[in-house]
């Protein structure tokens, strides 16, 4: 009788949330734990809600770009590309070739920067702080290049309907050509530092498995989906911009565990370097902007369109509705992080509490985009 009472257990609720050192951004979740195991998870989002979609309805078409920078604030160029393509398709204009190349180069460099951010944060989640410093050293190189291009390190506001704000700075191509081997070397170094580390492997291999069917059912995209073995990439399945002409692989994982999600991103960085290299070799001279009618105001033809791009975090979609006014009638954002986050429940089920943070980290969420 006494032993039975001593063994009675209760589920405990643990708040992992804003102002907790181990979470990403301002994502809060209440974990229900049974001993060491996670029995359930209730996510709370919205701490970073700024009403992006409503704000967009009150700004002029091109001004909205500054808010797009602030949705997924680690992959700004990719977001801008998505919106600029949407406006261009509604207007029926094509950006000049140089602008297309510059856009792809910047978008791919942005992918490297973003995955570096993931690499550093994921290392810290697993308990290794050194990768964080390495990743930021590598990031800094490219951030300074972005600063030279757009004048800002984070909120670039550089892509416009029909091209770019201004031409790439003088000597950009040479500078980048010089830099690429160093970037490649940095990626290799990061790889050496962490990938074969036994401690890292034991924390990530087989942890937070997500089956391919489940990943598809939850609407996952990007590296999370590819780590589960689904070869799906918007750059391939619905090619945009220059991607049909470029030669690159889409790395996929096998098991859909945390390690695969890490590995896929590392492999993607290498592919990005390849893409940048190809674009640099072909970067033409010429105009950077197709003139669009701007007087008395920049307007977009009435119509609606859905555009999506492959962001570092997945399938970033924008649904734009124009009624022919100076402002968008509606901007709807299909956020990859939000959908990826949905898969957190099945991944966390029955995992160890200590792994919960690793699993969350492997999703690489950006709350600016989840909450928008």
């Amino acid at each position: 009788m006494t032993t039975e009472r001593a063994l009675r257990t209760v589920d405990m609720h643990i708040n992992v949330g804003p102002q907790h050192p181990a979470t990403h951004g301002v994502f809060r979740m209440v974990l229900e734990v049974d001993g060491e195991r996670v029995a359930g998870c209730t996510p709370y989002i919205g701490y970073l809600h700024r009403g992006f979609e409503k704000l967009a309805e009150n700004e002029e078409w091109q001004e909205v770009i500054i808010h797009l920078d602030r949705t997924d604030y680690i992959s700004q160029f990719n977001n801008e590309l998505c919106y600029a393509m949407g406006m261009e398709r509604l207007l029926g204009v094509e950006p000049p070739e140089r602008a297309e190349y510059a856009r792809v180069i910047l978008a791919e460099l942005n992918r490297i920067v973003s995955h570096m951010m993931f690499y550093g944060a994921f290392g810290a989640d697993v308990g290794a702080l050194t990768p964080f410093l390495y990743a930021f050293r590598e990031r800094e190189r490219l951030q300074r290049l972005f600063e030279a291009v757009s004048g800002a390190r984070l909120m670039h506001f550089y892509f416009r309907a029909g091209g770019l704000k201004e031409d790439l700075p003088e000597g950009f191509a040479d500078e980048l050509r010089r830099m690429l081997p160093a970037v490649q070397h940095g990626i290799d170094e990061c790889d050496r530092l962490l990938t074969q580390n036994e401690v890292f492997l034991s924390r990530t291999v087989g942890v937070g498995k997500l089956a391919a069917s489940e990943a598809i059912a939850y609407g996952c995209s990007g590296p999370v989906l590819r780590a589960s073995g689904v070869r799906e990439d918007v750059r391939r399945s619905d090619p945009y911009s220059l991607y049909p002409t470029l030669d690159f692989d889409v790395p996929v994982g096998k098991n859909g565990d945390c390690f695969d999600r890490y590995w896929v991103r590392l492999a993607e960085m290498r592919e990005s370097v390849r893409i940048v290299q190809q674009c640099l070799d072909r970067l033409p001279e010429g105009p950077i902007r197709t003139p669009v009618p701007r007087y008395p105001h920049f307007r977009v033809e009435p119509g609606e369109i859905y555009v999506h791009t492959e962001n570092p975090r997945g399938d970033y979609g924008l649904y734009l509705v124009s009624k022919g006014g100076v402002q968008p009638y509606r901007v709807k954002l299909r956020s990859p992080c939000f959908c990826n986050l949905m898969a957190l429940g099945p991944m966390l089920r029955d995992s160890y509490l200590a792994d919960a943070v690793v699993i969350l980290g492997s999703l690489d969420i950006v709350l600016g985009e989840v909450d928008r």
Partner: protein
Amino acid sequence: MLGVLKGLVTTWKTHWRAPVTVQYPDERLPLQPRYMGFPGLMWDAEHDEPFCTGCQVCMRYCPTGCMFVEMKDNPKFATGESKRRKIVADFTINLSRCISCSICVEVCNFEAIEMTHHHERAGYYPDQVAGLPTLFQMSADHRAGVGQKPGHETRNLL
């Protein structure tokens, strides 16, 4: 064990590398020429008055609403010294709210405003409202530093 050692070798190698960080307030990394800090107002040395006519276009476009502009009749226009009918009377930017987006620069029809390299707003007071003299000073400092002339190629790009 081998993997851990490999990682350690990588870590050790960096011991002989020059540091990439600088001690910030004492040392600073150079800013890129295009760097966008806070906007400043340019001074037309030829007519000895600001370029800005106080037309309020930038104020209406500013996404954070951190600007305040007032217009007045230009006294120099009456005497024929200047071609500007109107001139800025008051111009304030609340730098605490400015997000350095450069929209004001791009919409200005008179090339009167530019993004300066001034970006440090940490101070002892929360009141970070820059008035006309500060804004002129920011732009003058910026141009002295970068060697840029008034006139901005990126105007009217929205």
